[in-house]
């Protein structure tokens, strides 16, 4: 007993759930890694002939081609959009895979900073209504990341699939007002890759792996040599798109590299032969990418210079979020007031004219919005997290950009080396948090929630 008091841990095997926009992670508190990492998507069958529910399929099984099965996302922007599917997915994993007894442990749910009060209320109520957990807790994802790193004061830069978000964390609590968020993240890169390939190789059939049974490698302008697989009819478009996600992911993982500085200033060096890499498309064709590899990665830092064909999907954003809390009606006034008063003389790029902020700009902007007393420690503890941050040279570029724009600050970035840990960082942090002995007073039971009321619990307990 005394031993556990020293390291502060007290295992109660709580369940930790991190619904991300790309993967949902579920596991036991105290573990190093989630037991389950599953796509935040589901496949749904056609209306059954007789009365009854449409079947939903989760996990790896989504990838099996079936006729008339649509693939849909459960989560967008780290928020649950399809509640029926979400509940069914969690039920499937809790009951059929992990076979947990709800009564025995509480559940910790990782939520994004920008969750609205109504959304958070819905999460709490849905979980109490659908599952028998004795208690639950909503933990903010930057808070979890700060716990994973063991840094109570830090600036968390989370570059995920749907969004890039930057949140200052003080004493393990996320500052909501200073949080900024853009969508220049993984999905944006996917669109960039798609655009680039369509432009560079207009006649190329990108296809998807599931359509191909056999293939012989060829070099691009040559015809692809492959045999098609026998497939059921009526494969839906959404299934095809879902399959293509894997292709974009592979290109991101293997090909992209962030240039040292803004690419426009230094294009020639990257046109060099030595920067060329070849990539095998699903049909077996090899294509060669040179400067494109850098352009794609650079688009995260300078989205303005790389307009997408489909502009509407990613409208320009400068990352300022008005996070809706209980009191959001006051917020707009507050915003304008603050830009007048606290930033007495904002640097030129911070003027209202800024409509698009790239990654480094966004970090720098968030940094300047933090109270001056905290800024030095923030700059010294910048945590880079999320799957998209794994692109080669990404942290180095942020470091260089920040040191240039903030000569007076000592900038230090911290990024976990292991790629698996980097993308599961918020889950791991949740696991750390919910196995702390001192944390167990924080769980909220259904009774307490009903007695104290949503406002008090959501704002003062789930901090």
């Amino acid at each position, binding site marked *: 007993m005394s031993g556990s008091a020293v390291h*502060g841990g007290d295992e109660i095997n709580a369940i930790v759930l991190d619904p991300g926009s790309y993967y949902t992670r579920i596991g036991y508190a105290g573990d190093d890694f989630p037991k389950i990492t599953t796509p935040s998507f589901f496949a749904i069958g056609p209306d059954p002939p007789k009365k009854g529910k449409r079947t939903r399929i989760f996990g790896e099984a989504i990838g099996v081609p079936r006729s008339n099965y649509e693939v849909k996302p459960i989560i967008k922007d780290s928020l649950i959009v399809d509640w029926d599917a979400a509940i069914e997915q969690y039920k499937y994993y809790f009951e059929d895979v992990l076979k947990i007894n709800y009564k025995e442990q509480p559940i910790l749910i990782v939520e994004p900073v920008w969750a609205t009060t109504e959304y958070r209320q819905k999460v709490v109520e849905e979980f109490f209504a659908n599952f028998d957990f004795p208690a639950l807790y909503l933990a903010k994802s930057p808070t979890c990341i700060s716990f994973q790193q063991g840094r109570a004061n830090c600036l968390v830069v989370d570059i995920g699939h749907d969004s890039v978000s930057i949140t200052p964390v003080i004493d393990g609590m996320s500052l909501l007002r200073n949080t900024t968020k853009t969508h220049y993240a993984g999905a944006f890169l996917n669109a960039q890759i798609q655009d680039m390939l369509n432009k560079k190789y207009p006649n190329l059939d990108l296809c998807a792996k599931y359509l191909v049974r056999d293939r012989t490698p060829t070099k691009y302008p040559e015809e692809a040599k492959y045999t098609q697989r026998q497939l059921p009819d009526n494969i839906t478009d959404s299934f095809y798109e879902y399959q293509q996600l894997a292709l974009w992911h592979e290109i991101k993982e293997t090909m992209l590299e962030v240039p040292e500085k803004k690419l426009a200033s230094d294009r020639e060096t990257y046109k060099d032969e030595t920067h060329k890499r070849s990539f095998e498309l699903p049909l077996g064709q090899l294509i060669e990418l040179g400067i494109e590899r850098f352009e794609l990665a650079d688009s995260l830092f300078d989205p303005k210079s790389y307009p997408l064909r489909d502009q509407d999907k990613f409208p320009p954003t400068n990352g300022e979020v008005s996070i809706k809390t209980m009191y959001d009606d006051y917020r707009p006034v507050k915003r304008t007031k603050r830009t007048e008063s606290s930033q007495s003389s904002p640097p030129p790029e911070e003027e209202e004219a800024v409509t698009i902020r790239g990654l480094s700009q966004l970090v720098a902007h968030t940094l300047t919005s933090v109270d*001056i*007393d905290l800024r030095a420690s923030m700059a010294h503890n910048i945590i880079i997290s999320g799957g998209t941050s794994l692109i080669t040279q990404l942290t180095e570029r942020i470091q260089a950009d920040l040191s240039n724009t903030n000569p007076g*600050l000592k900038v230090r970035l911290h990024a976990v080396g292991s790629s698996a840990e980097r993308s599961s960082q918020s889950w791991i942090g949740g696991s750390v948090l919910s196995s702390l002995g001192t944390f167990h007073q924080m769980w909220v039971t259904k009774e307490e929630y009903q007695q104290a009321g949503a406002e008090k619990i959501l704002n003062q307990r789930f901090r």
Partner: protein
Amino acid sequence: MSANDILDVLNVQRDSLDLPAKKKQKVLNDVAAVHRQTGLSRELYSLLGPNTPPANLSNATSSGTKSKFNLKPSPWTRQSFTAQSGDQKGAEFFHWVKGSKELIEQEPEKPYIFEKFNVRLDIPELPDEATFDTYMSELLQDEEDARVKEEERKKVAEESTKSNSTEPKTETATGEKTDTQNEEKTETGTKEEKRSTHENKRSAPDELKNVEQSIPPRHNWTYEETVHLFELCNAFELKWPIIFDRFKYPGLREEDLKDQFYRVSAKIYQSQPNASHALIESLKSFSRVKEIERKQYLEKLLKRTPAEIAEEESLVIEARRFELAAKKMLVERSQLLTLLDSPQVTQSTQQYQSSQGLANLYNNLMIIDKHQKKRQLQQQLRLASSSEPLPPPIPSAASSSYKRDRTFQTQLQQYLSNVLRQSQSVNGREPNAIQQLLMKRLTVKEEEAYGLHYHANERLTPGVMLRSTQRLAGTQQRQSVLRSVNTLLQELDIPTGGGTTWRPVMPTRKTMAKYDELIRSVVVLLDVKRARDKLESEIKLIKSQRGIE
């Protein structure tokens, strides 16, 4: 468990030797196998030994594990507990606790062990709205009083400087104002802030305007806002950045929140009979205006451009350099002073009159000199300990107008003549011939005639030395080089002292010097020749490769 069991499990055929019980049957099998062998002779085959893979189990470990198994495992029990959650009992969770079920059940129920880490801050209770209102108006009154007092003080100061007559009415006018409505009061409050800013900034008139504009007046706090503030302070344990982050009313700064919290808390404590005075004082010491200004200055500090930072740094370096130069000068001066006080000689100079005596004198002087140096060094050290960065001692050649001109006296010469003159004056005796000679300023010619030579930079061993045994500097070469030098000298018919001694037949100083020069140039010549030979052969080689020749 034995090796055989393992082999059994793994389905490995055992060798016959290991199994005496089944020997007969196995032997038969083996014989059959041997017969089948054609390539190997039977003897060689049997030499191969048993073919069973080794599967050794050490008995020690197996018995060790056994004894461990015999030990009763210490019991752990899955026990339920509840952690206090908020104001009420929390949910029931389960964790594992060391100890048997019975033992734990006997124990009296304890509070959850981590509960002691739950900190509760002692934050004063906000009173009801009526009391709050009186507090606020009192606070305003206090401020007003302070303002009036300040104004008076200022006026007195003004009066003493200017001899103008005062306007007695203004004071009463400001006094009346105190009773007016809230809004006006905050306005006066603003004035007060502005004025105090003014005072702080009087030295920097450029920035004055800027600062004055950017500090907004104190917020007019309502009861609701204050209640919300106190609630947050309780919920977030006075972590101000977070309280500020979650504060729901717009348009305020962190400093506004702190200000309100501190002054209201101070009021609350003041109304309590047994509150600590120090606490109230510390609460009152918070100044909103100062805080805002401090942050603005920090902000400005951060906004420096790299060029400005670099300039600042270079200025700092420059300043340090000045400091160092000043220190260096001090050190130099003290060195000069120590040089001036020369050793006193009290003995007779008789003993120094032979050449032996002179050498002794020289040695003694060297020792004294060394002591002096040591003293200087100590002095420097003392200086160094008083001020850390120690400038390197200046080389004497560079610092003074010392010249290596023959017409001037060398240092040593100066020294000698100085010493001699002193000893003479002390003893009051006529200097002998050598002394006189040394005291005189000699021309180059004279020096040569007397055979006097000042070894300025050479290292000499003390005592008498014969030039014929002196080693020449030029002979410090590799043995093989020396050998070829030797043959060359023989070819040129230059006489050597013979053997390895390497000296001219008549080792006068001049011949020695010439000889040394000669040997050096011979060595250079040999080097050049070797290099030329090498290049020539290379050229030949390349030419032959290219087929030119």
